[in-house]
Every structure is written in C-alpha cells, then in structure tokens.
C-alpha cells in the first residue's frame, strides 16, 4: 500500500515513526514548534509527543548541539535541529571536535549516535548568512556521516536510518525540495552504513552526478536531454561521507562524460571531490571530454533579486553545459 507524501511531510512521518517507536528518541532545537522555521516537516509533534521530547530552545546553537552529543553518550537518540545551516556554525566544536572524533578518541568504546538536522533555506533575497550549503565542509571530517536526501523516499527513510545509526550523522534537507511529491511504500528501517549513491535514471551518453536539490536539477536536465534523444545516467550521492564513488566510476567508464552539479561552492567542494575520486578509478583515456562541474560562483549569496537569479545555476545553464559535453 502506498502513502502520498511531499518531501516535508515525509520527514514529518519519519519523526512520528521514530518518536512513537523509540522512547529514547527526542528532538531539540530552535523553532521546532514553529512552521516559520521548519516548514511542514514537524507540524504538531510537540502536541503529539509532549514538550519534554520535542524541545524548542533558547537561542543557543552551540549548547543545544553539545547537549545532544552528551545525551547521545548517555544512551539517547537525539535529533538536534538547526533551521538554517548558517546558524549551526556556532556549533562547530560540538560537531567537528566532539561528535565526529569521540569514537576514535575513546578507542571505539563510546559513540554519540545523534542526528544533526540542518536545513538549507536559501533564496528569497535572504543573503549571505541565511543561504549556505556547507555539506562539503562537513564531508571532509572523518567520523561524521553526511546525508543529503534528494527524494521524498530518502527524506523519510534516510532520516530514520540516520537516527538509528550509532554514529553521529549530519542530515541536510533543503527547503526548495519541500513541495516535491511521491507515493511511498511502508517504512523499512535501513542500515545507514550500507547506503550508497543511487542511479536514478539509466543512460549511456553522459553521467550526471548531484546531491540534494541539485539532483532534481540533474533529473530535469536528463528529461530535456531525453527529448533530444540523448540519454543521461543520473546518480544521486545521498550519503556524502563516507563517500563511495565506485558506482559513479563504473558509469563514467561507460559514458566517458561526467557532469557534476553541486549547490555549494567550487573551490575544495563536493563536485571537485567527485571528479577527483572518479579520475582515480577510471582507466586512462576513459574520458571523452574533460569532466565539468556546475556550482555556485565563489561568492557569498547576494540579496538583490537580479544577482540572486544569476547566483544559482539555472536549468538552462545546466542543459547547455550538458549539451556542450555531448558534442
């Protein structure tokens, strides 16, 4: 039996499932009682499960994240929510120094199994401090699993897998995806450590790799290309760290063309990591054309609408880039 969701209500279903089934799950973060902060992804959770388990907090990103780390060490499965990734930067010590390194520092005897949910919420002329997509920073850190759901199914099932995972997980969702709809089968609990990049469309002409919202751009591009009888293989990264590039390398060995679309910056970014990892794995001469990445320009997000429109990669730009690669 299928249930209809959008990306936001799929996460709401995941929260409901976790809070219902696991007494050691609790949620803490700013704005979790307010649709203003978390859209339709957490509606009425505090009424269903109580304000002791769904905790809206003082303005204290750093302490809230540290509290979640400590609670996880004490046997809970906390989910800490940051309504914008930019605000989460106050919590870098708890995430990078503490959560990510704890297992290794303590000899693998203790691990904070918390989930840090961080929302990318850009556009709307919000500017440089309300728009950032910093997944590549965090994917650089050993010990921190980084998850970016691009589909309704992953929004629900990877959130559940993240919370049930004994390692710290950064789960990054994107407000630009909340309207995406799908019909899903019943929930299956997955082992996050076994999740890999997924091929969403098969094709022999070009490999397009993306994550999060960029994956939807990749699928749009594949549709356009199909109308012109060019077949793109779209691969969604899903889990950015630890990164398993094997599937992408196999695809590129077949297509000889690689386009990476990423919602972050170019320098030292995820797109560069994908291209480097594939290059290491394919035979010399496998590329028919040099690989290409479409990313944000290396500039902070602007506010003015004209600049903002120019800032985010458009479908037209991506389609033109793909077609140039296919020439």
């Amino acid at each position, binding site marked *: 039996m299928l249930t209809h969701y959008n990306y936001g209500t799929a996460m709401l279903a995941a929260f409901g499932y976790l809070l219902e089934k696991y007494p050691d799950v609790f949620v803490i973060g700013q704005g979790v009682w307010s649709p203003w902060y978390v859209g339709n992804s957490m509606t009425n959770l505090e009424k269903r499960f109580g304000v002791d388990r769904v905790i809206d907090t003082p303005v204290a990103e750093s302490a809230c994240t540290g509290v979640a780390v400590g609670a996880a060490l004490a046997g809970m499965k906390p989910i800490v929510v940051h309504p914008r990734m930019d605000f989460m930067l106050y919590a870098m010590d708890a995430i990078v120094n503490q959560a990510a390194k704890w*297992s290794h520092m303590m*000899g693998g005897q203790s691990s904070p199994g918390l989930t840090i949910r961080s929302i990318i919420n850009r556009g709307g002329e919000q500017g440089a401090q309300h728009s950032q997509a910093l997944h590549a920073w965090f994917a650089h850190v050993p010990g921190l699993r980084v998850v970016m759901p691009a589909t309704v199914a992953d929004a629900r099932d990877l959130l559940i897998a993240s919370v049930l995972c004994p390692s710290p997980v950064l789960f990054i969702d994107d407000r630009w995806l909340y309207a995406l709809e799908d019909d899903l089968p019943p929930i299956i609990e997955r082992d996050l450590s076994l999740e890999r990049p997924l091929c969403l469309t098969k094709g022999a002409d070009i490999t397009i790799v993306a994550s999060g919202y960029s994956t939807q751009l990749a699928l749009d591009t594949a549709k356009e290309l199909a109308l012109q009888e060019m077949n793109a293989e779209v691969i969604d990264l899903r889990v950015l760290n630890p990164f*398993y590039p094997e599937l992408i390398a196999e695809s590129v060995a077949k297509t000889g063309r690689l386009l990476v679309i990423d919602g972050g910056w170019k320098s030292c970014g995820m797109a560069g990591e994908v291209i480097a990892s594939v290059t290491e794995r394919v035979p010399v001469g496998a590329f028919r054309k040099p690989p290409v990445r479409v990313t944000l320009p290396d500039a902070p997000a602007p506010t003015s609408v004209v600049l903002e429109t120019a800032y985010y990669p458009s479908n037209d730009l991506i389609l033109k880039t793909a077609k140039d690669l296919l020439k």
Partner: protein
Amino acid sequence: MNNDWSFGSLADPLQHQQPVNVEGQNATVLIRQLEMMLRIRMAERCLANGKRDGLIGGPVHLGVGQEAIAVGVAAELRKTDRVFGTHRSHAHVLSLGADLRRLFSEILGRDTGLSRGMGGSMHLWDQQNGFYGSVPIVSATIPLAVGAALAAKLQCSGDIGVVYFGDGAVEEGVFHESLNLARMLKAPVLFVVENNLFASHMHISLRQPKEATSRFAAANDIPYVLVDGNDVVQVRLAAAKLIVAARTCNGPGFLEAVTYRWYGHVDWREDIDVGVNRSIDDVTLWHKRDPIARLIAGLEGAGLFDLERLKEMEHKVAKEIEVAWNMAMSDPFPTPLALISRVYAEGGKSE
C-alpha cells in the same frame, strides 16, 4: 564571600592552612579519601617524572594540589552518574575508581589504556565507573554534561551529570549558553569549577573583572556554593547539598572550589618563569595549604590517624603505583588497524 564577587581570604594562601575539621565525619571514609588523594598525588608525581625523563610522549596536565575537589565530589556520586572532565582530569577519573595501570597505559599510548591507547592524557574514558570522557577543548564538555543530565531526566534514572572545568572555561560562550539551558530544562547537572586562579599562564585578575565565577550561577538563577577547594570535607558537604537538589530534579547546581595547582599549566615544570602573576613565593605558600597535609593534621588531631599508619599507607600506594607503571610500560601498543577501525562505531569503511 563579599557580595562583590571577590574571594577575599579564600584566594590567600596564608589563610585556610588549618587542619581539616573532621568532627562528625565517618573516620573510615575519611581515611579512604586520604588514601585516594595520596594515590592521585603519587600517580601524578610518577607522571611528572615520566614526562621529565622522556618516557611519556604527549602532554600531561597535572593537578597536584587540587586533589580534594575530585575526591570530595566523588564521595557523593554513583557509578551510574555521568561525569565529564577536562584536559586536567587524572584526579577526576582516579577518584571514581579507575584502574591505575589503565590510566598509565593510556598515557603511554597502549592498547590496554582507558581509551585503548587512542586518547592519551587528555582524552580519558572509563564509563563503567561513571566517567563519560574528558577532552582538551576548554568548556566543550559543559554542554555534554547538561545533555547527559537531560538524558537522565528523560530516563527517570535519578542519576546526574557532573562536569569539572576551570576558571578559564567560564570565559567561553558555550559555558553561558549551557547554564541558561540547564536551568531552563531543569537538567540535573552539577557544574564544578576548580578555580585555581590560572588559565594556562594567565592569572584570573588579567582575564576577568571578578574572581568568583559563581556570579554566573547567580545570574542564571542556579544555586551555588563557594568553598575552600583544599578542604575535602567542605567540598563534600557542599557537593552533597547541591547533588541532593539535582537528583530530585530541581535542576542544576554550581560548586566553586578555590584551589591552586602546584605544577605549571602542562608537564612537570612550575611555570614560575612563564606565568603572569605566578611566583615561586606563591607556589611555596600554597604548599602550606596542602589538602593532604591538612586532612592528615585533622585526622591526627582527632586521634584517628598517626604517622605510623601514614607511612604504611604511603608505602602501600607507592608499591601500587610502581607495579601499575611497570605493567603499563610493558603493555602492547594498538595495532595499525586501530587507526581506521575506530573512526565509526560500526567499524571502518569497508574499502
């Protein structure tokens, strides 16, 4: 304390040198506490020598002179409480009952160590005794202890979180966030400030407008007690009062214990040449406010202890330390696999 948040006599090494008042206390418990304080001190002396002689690779932050605080607080804790430490946590972990050999092994980078040789002196773990971990990022474990306390509240376990930190940690932002959050969530956590007047080389007068960090507890509506940290009985009584309140879920408590570290910030030197406002005169004067000597004097005065028993105790502990150190020195190192296999709880990346 004066109401202007200065310590007055508590920061004066010429004051508070008198024997510990043991009246009404259980003699057996006090003698056990004395033995623990001696064990901590002699273990740290052993580490100081090991560092000086090049047998220890990493930094060791020694707390000689501060032993009464950990021992006094530990007397009020259960094995199921959740205690967090700092870069200077040998006393914290030992006071909870950690095995000496495993502490030494850890500091020597051996697989048998408390953190399986992955942490050294600054990342200690002994959860079976209630020690959830220590790390050297100043103030980082403060919110962790609040979280572990919040977990205890959600689990209705009656356990508490405890976090030790120094006077430098209150200069960090997350300390203030954590106090406010602990108070608002009514988290059963005990904040323990070991105020030794120094952060690394800098005296508190050069870092803060007032000496008493408990002013921040007052600002956050958290009950606090300020004590002479070199008096194990006073520390224990203060901890007991705050812990009873925390356990009954009335929220956090804040214990500020004034003390002094005899060694410098790190390793075996006294740091009288690098410290700002730290002199050999100060160090020597503080030796006279020794928490161990004062406890011995208190016990002797009450006819509960004598020099002969002290010698026996010292001999026993010295032997214990010698055996533990020798075993640790011949313990095995971790295998190279440990580099990758401990990154994720589920084991290494299968590549």
